[in-house]
């Protein structure tokens, strides 16, 4: 094989993985109702950063993610990945959806599910199989490549979806409430898996959740969204140690402080449009 190795020098990665969202707005226009879901979102996720987005249910988190992924055209504003405007699903971006059962194809085996996007990339067979094997091993599913997704537990299915995204070798990984439907234990495991994979691969990760603890535990930055029509309320930098550990990290006084800070912001988020802070004129 003569393709160049995918070892990314920091400069190249900085170009490729930087995610910019500028003045993004989305209004759904139906026959019967128009709904302004997202009003004005501007933020940047640096290349190789793990950022979390929290917001109340219905805040437009999924809408935002689909716009970033190029799956939904925004009404206004722009998304740029590595400096390039995103108008359709860009190369180098992978999405992990909340509904893993619907995102995996039940007629394919686990290995075939992971392999399918690689076939689009026109990788030779040996390279594909190597990637499938390695990414399944990375999520701890080396022993079930021949199973079908519906024969696995929910947590395992979401691991398959993560393995599929990893095998794709994305510069940016988008995750939409990926662990909302699994039990607490599995959730903790998958959170740690996400952190360790991110450590290892250093891709940009945008992690959407409605869980404040999860956002603080996982992120380097937490973006807090208001209720819809959505704006960015604030961005909280998470200055916790890089190596996180479920019990110890969550027991840190700093964790509690950050958690409280985000919590207060979320409380404000819910009433942001109905009760504006004094002195702030409403448009």
């Amino acid at each position, binding site marked *: 094989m003569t393709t160049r190795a995918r070892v990314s020098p920091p400069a190249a990665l900085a170009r490729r993985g930087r995610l910019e969202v500028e003045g993004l707005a989305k209004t759904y226009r139906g026959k019967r109702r128009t709904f302004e879901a997202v009003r004005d979102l501007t933020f940047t996720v640096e290349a190789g950063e793990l950022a979390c987005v929290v917001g109340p249910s219905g805040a437009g988190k999924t809408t935002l993610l*689909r716009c970033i*992924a*190029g*799956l939904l055209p925004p009404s206004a504003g722009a998304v740029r990945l590595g400096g390039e405007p995103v108008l359709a*699903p860009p*190369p180098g*971006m*992978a*999405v992990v*959806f909340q*509904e893993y059962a*619907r*995102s995996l*194809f*039940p*007629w*394919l085996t686990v290995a075939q599910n992971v392999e*399918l*996007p690689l*076939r*689009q990339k026109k990788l030779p067979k040996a390279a594909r199989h190597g990637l499938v094997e390695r990414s399944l091993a990375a999520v701890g599913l080396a022993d*079930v490549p*021949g*199973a*079908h997704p*519906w*024969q*696995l537990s929910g947590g395992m299915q979401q691991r398959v979806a993560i393995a599929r995204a990893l095998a*794709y070798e994305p510069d940016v990984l988008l995750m939409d409430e990926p662990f909302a439907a699994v039990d607490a234990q599995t959730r903790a495991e998958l959170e740690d898996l996400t952190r360790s994979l991110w450590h290892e691969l250093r891709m940009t990760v945008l992690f959407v959740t409605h869980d404040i603890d999860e956002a603080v535990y996982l992120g380097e930055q937490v973006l807090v969204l208001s209720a819809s029509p959505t704006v960015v309320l604030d961005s909280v930098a998470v200055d916790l140690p890089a190596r996180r550990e479920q019990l110890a990290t969550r027991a840190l006084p700093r964790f509690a402080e950050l958690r409280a800070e985000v919590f207060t912001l979320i409380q404000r988020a819910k009433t942001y449009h109905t009760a504006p802070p004094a002195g702030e004129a409403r448009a």
Partner: protein
Amino acid sequence: MTWYPHRRIRAVPDGLLGPLGLLLCAGLLEAAPRLGLVPAAYLPPLSETAAALADEAAGGAFWSALADTLRGWGYGLAVAAAAGVGLGLVIGGAAPLRRVTASTIEFLRPIPSVALVPLAVLLYGTGQTSTLLLVVYASVWPVLLQVLAGVRDVDPVARDTAAGFRLSWWLRLRHLVWPTTLPFLMTGLRLAASVALILAVTAQLVIGAPGLGREIARAQAANAVDRMYALVVVTGLLGVAVNAGARALERRVLFWHASVRKEAAA
């Protein structure tokens, strides 16, 4: 105390209820003509029908008629399936095309295939091709409509997944749209298979194209009532076989579908 009336029936195991019913029916068909409840000239006892069937099976004419019927059924079904799938995927894949064709389909579909008998005779005379035309016309609709429904049923999350990974048109068709459509197609094929058999026999009966239908008409004309019933029983058995075959195929092809899945070790 609660009393479950349906419990009493459970004295006979479930698996035996079907054969038991058949046996009762056979007994009735044997007894009724013998007891004079129905004139034996119109409904001979079952044993005589069975004997006539054995006679038939010994002769070559029966087998070639059976082969003609199966051929008309099989070819017709194959053409209908290919046309239904092709048209369905193309029309279903493009929303404007779907809207343009919807009214035409709704108009053509309810035309009973039998109403096309004169046309078939005009075009192809009383040969096999007439049978084929009627069979194809009747059985293309269930396939087409089911494929159209299937193509529309692609899960939005799966669609987003495929789009997000930038899968090509071909990979999407092969690995997303086609498997999503398969359960619908299987239902369509099962319906089409039955309809095709009905039309194959009808065409032979009405037009006189070669096959079991024509043999039935001839037996009736020759007043060979037992032979006629023997042939009717054969067409019935064919219908049962077609349905069983379609169901078996469905279970094989749709092993991953929620309605078929069984627990299997990974």
